[in-house]
């Protein structure tokens, strides 16, 4: 395996890790207004991801930094091409973080309501826009000879990309609902379990539509023909397993299953693109590939050594933090004030 392939895999891992982790905390932010019946419930809901959401977001920052270092042209083309959508994602992430951190600082109703809006919209927008962005990447963008995006904003808002946005939005929401069922108790837990079960069929329909249209719209299945191969099959089976586990009340397994759906679904995207990183819809010669977009071998080698040392350490302490806060959040644990 060459260095470029190794770094493509690593960046895929970082984005997939981001979707898996921030996926459920987006879901929690989206569900918070709907599954809570009062202020205490809202605080319980937010506190289920309290110690985690920030570190989950660092997966994105690391993916961005790694992309910059390993594939500067991918980073430059993608970020300048998706200028306004990224601006919206950034604004959303800003208000979301502020919503979490500032919400309980004041008791006034308008203050907390504003924070709730920040958390909700700050979760909805990125959950949707990441799907739009990655769908656009795989369908191909008008990338010119100088590697720069030559299209306009409406080109990014095509129907299939919007459907892709819907896919990530609903999938993260389902993932978040099941996460909440593992972190809450009593009535709130019963409500989120019910929500998750109700969501499964509509989410399945959206996923199916996206996958079937994918044959026509994208390059992802070109190599496979009708039978899509191992990764998509695992994604499909995982998604089917979600409802099975939920119906026998094994929500821990159901969470693993939504996680697997996200992981393998995303893998389909990355594997389908490889070795391209940004296909050009104008001319195959203008495709950005892992080779023409990459950094020098020296840079990739140094980065590889660092990644091999630090990624396992990060996984260890991040995992430990989940272990420390493994207990469910109860209504009694919320300070009365």
């Amino acid at each position, binding site marked *: 395996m060459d260095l470029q392939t190794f770094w493509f895999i690593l960046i895929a891992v970082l984005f997939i890790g981001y979707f898996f982790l921030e996926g459920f905390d987006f879901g929690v932010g989206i569900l918070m207004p709907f599954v809570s019946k009062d202020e205490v419930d809202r*605080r*319980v809901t*937010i506190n289920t991801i*309290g*110690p985690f959401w*920030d*570190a989950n*977001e*660092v997966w994105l*920052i*690391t993916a*961005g*930094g*790694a*992309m*910059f*270092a*390993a594939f*500067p042209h991918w*980073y*430059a083309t*993608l*970020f*300048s*091409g998706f*200028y*306004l959508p*990224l*601006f919206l994602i*950034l*604004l959303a*992430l*800003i*208000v979301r*973080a*502020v919503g*979490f*951190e*500032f919400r*309980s*600082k*004041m008791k006034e109703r308008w203050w907390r309501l504003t924070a709730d809006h920040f958390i909700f919209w700050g979760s909805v927008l990125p959950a949707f826009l990441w799907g739009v962005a990655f769908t656009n990447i795989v369908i191909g963008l008008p990338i010119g000879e100088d*590697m*720069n995006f030559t299209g306009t904003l409406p080109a990014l808002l095509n129907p299939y990309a919007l459907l892709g946005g819907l896919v990530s939005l609903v999938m993260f929401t389902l993932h978040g609902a099941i996460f909440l069922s593992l972190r809450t108790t009593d009535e709130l837990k019963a409500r989120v379990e019910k929500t998750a079960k109700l969501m499964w069929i509509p989410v399945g329909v959206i996923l199916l539509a996206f996958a079937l249209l994918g044959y026509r719209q994208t390059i992802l299945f070109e190599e496979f023909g009708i039978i899509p191969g191992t990764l998509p099959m695992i994604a499909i089976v995982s998604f089917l397993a979600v409802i099975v586990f939920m119906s026998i009340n094994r929500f821990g397994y159901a969470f693993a299953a939504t996680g697997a759906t996200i992981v393998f679904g995303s893998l389909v995207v990355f594997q389908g693109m490889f070795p391209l990183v940004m296909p050009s819809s104008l001319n195959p010669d203008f495709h950005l590939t892992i080779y023409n977009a990459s*950094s*020098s071998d*020296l*840079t990739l080698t*140094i*980065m590889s050594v*660092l*990644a091999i040392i630090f*990624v396992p350490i*990060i996984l260890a*302490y991040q995992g430990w*933090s989940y272990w*420390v806060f493994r207990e469910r959040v109860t209504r009694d*644990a*919320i*300070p009365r004030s």
Partner: protein
Amino acid sequence: MEALELARWQFGITTVYHFIFVPLTLGLSVLVAILQTFYYRTGDIHYKMLTKYFGKLFVIIFTLGIVTGIVQEFQFGMNWSEYSRFVGDIFGIPLAIEALTAFFIESTFLGLWIFGWTRLPKAVHLACIWLVAIASNLSAVWILMANSWMQVPVGYELVGGRAELADFIAILLNERLLVQMPHTILGGFITGGMFVLGLSAWMIIRNQQAEIFLKSAKIALVFTAVASLLTATTGHDQAQETVKTQPMKMAAMEGLWETEQPASFSLFAIINQQEGTSSREIRLPYMLSVLAHNNVTSEVRGMNDIQAEMEEIHGPGDYLPPVAIVYWSFRIMVGLGVLFIIVAFWGLWLWWKGKLQDHRLFLKTSIVMIFLTFLANTAGWMVAEMGRQPWVVYELLLTADGVSPSVFKNSIWITMIGFTLVYGALAVAAFYLVWYFGKQGAHEEEEGVETNLHTY
């Protein structure tokens, strides 16, 4: 305005804003860790109250540092795609390492610290805040490594129109990094120190938990006194390094048009960049030679000479930075730096005399210092960044050649206004919260009883 100018304004606005919060978190994280260490070692409940008081303010400020920092990381690609292509092979490394070695630690252990008062053994909980403090400062090291390379490019070779890594060690040990990094971090320590000192002074003036806040005032005084002295000495080192590596920046910092030998130091001047003159000057003879080279008679080159030389090397063009801004930013920074030293040692003297808590003028002055630290930090970065213009990577890439060709004026107007409005609102909210919680004073604590388990 054209897309280039707008992109520069946006980068300037978002960077200056980001850098309001960052230096404060550098110093404040260390001070909160020190306060908690005092609590851990002495068991004095007052230190625990102070840890939570300043810890709460730290989290508010840290949040804004994080969210504005994400914008910075994305903005290189969004607005400066050609710059990113040019520097990515080198610049990307410290950015990626920063995420791997600093951001993950900060975010994970801050979560553990905020929510972990009851869950973790005392020593482990203390270790969490120290890890946050160390990682915050480590992230400064990495980003300054990236910036130092833009100031003084080393360890690269130009291949196919971009800078490629040739010598990683050279970048790690970039001479600019070795002077810029301590100077910037110590500036952050002054900021954190003055913040703790000023808020403590406010509480003492209000006679609210004065006995408790006298303890934090004393810690902050020692911290700030040491940091302010070291900031001055490292600043001097950095200026001497700038004379060697970026003579144009140094000449602009001094408003020095013609080469002088021996060179005088300018105290005041009215700069006219169009005519290339400085008028109504007050100059201290020999001083610049001494400061630049530790030598009374040495030569310091002026902007006209350096401009001519750059034209020879890089072709025709205007290679002057905005001189007046650089000149005055430098004076504001140095003047405030001297003021910080005076205030810190004034406080130490009052403490020695046993009058610290009664000297209202000193206490009030301390409060004002909180605001002046931000001004000094901003001025310092204006010197560093505007003094490098018109280059984005010194003598390798012009700022004008780094901008994204695919991002048009209208888009940048939208994002610039959007960022400015959101940032403005956040500034108001953050200032209000710091004021509100600052005024409340420290929460009474009982040993063994933890209250704020779920803080959100």
